[in-house]
């Protein structure tokens, strides 16, 4: 059943390619969700282009709502932030307790992110499948 545990985000269709649609969305920083949006335009609004699949045809400029399971949000945060964080902490603790060399272990902890993100790059195809969105028209 759809409708459960979903998260929605407003966006505007940028272009369509077959059953794939590129949707432009605006993300806002945590600060921007406050009342000061108008005042505080500094670097906290970003546009992103999101690929989404659609069941019907949209044309550029349509206002749509992106729908995805909210579980995916946490999953994405896991891959993007939490797992590398754990890796980093792990490296730091291990190398630090082995070598007692701060500079080295610090460097290694940061360096471990490089192979990690490369690995992520390899798994990209998989993510593409997991993190998919559907869209529906906004507000009829």
């Amino acid at each position: 059943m759809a409708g459960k545990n979903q998260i929605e985000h407003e966006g505007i269709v940028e272009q369509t390619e077959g059953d794939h649609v590129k949707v432009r969305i605006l993300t806002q920083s945590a600060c921007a969700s406050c009342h000061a949006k108008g005042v505080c335009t500094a670097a906290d609004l970003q546009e992103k282009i999101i690929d989404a699949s659609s069941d019907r045809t949209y044309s550029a400029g349509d206002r749509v709502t992106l729908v995805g399971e909210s579980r995916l949000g946490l999953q994405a945060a896991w891959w993007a932030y939490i797992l590398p964080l754990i890796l980093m902490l792990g490296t730091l603790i291990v190398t630090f307790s082995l070598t007692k060399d701060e500079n080295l272990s610090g460097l290694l902890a940061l360096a471990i992110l490089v192979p990690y993100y490369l690995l992520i790059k390899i798994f990209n195809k998989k993510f593409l499948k997991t993190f998919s969105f559907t869209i529906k028209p906004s507000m009829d």
Partner: protein
Amino acid sequence: MTYFIIIISAIFVNNIVLSQFLGICPFLGVSKKISTGLGMTGAVTFVMVIATIVTYFIQKLILVPFGITFLQTISFILVIAALVQLVEIVLKKVSPPLYQALGVFLPLITTNCAILGVAIMTVNRDFNLLEAVVFSASSAIGFGLALVTFAGIREQLELVEIPKGMQGAPIALLVAGILAMAFMGFAGMV
């Protein structure tokens, strides 16, 4: 044991939101959805830890040796601002789908005062690197704890009729105040 104390202290006793007053804006402003709060916590922790490592080295290898610790503020803020963006750029390059998913689900993390504040606090406390990292990670978790608890309460308050004058910021601050009062019970636990 010192690590344990650092952790307990940063999460409960000296919670950065409820007793240090850092990151209040996202705390008050961030969406009332609990899952968003959780995701935010992950992101903030990650950025905070990286920022701590980098600023730690800047302090140790540049500022202190050259006797220019007065450049702390300006260099930290530049580095942190750059780092946050760098993380985004890397994510976008490395994994567009992941990046997109985060865009839909999480508000962006920018250089809020929690990150800068924690970075400054760490270097001012004469921690070694590991302690610094543990401290910043725990601070971020403390932030998350406060954020998620608060999101829960706010979600519940959405369901009842709050007196008109108290709606919005006042009631949120009141809840934060009572939470802070409750968290004072942990005093002395370290």
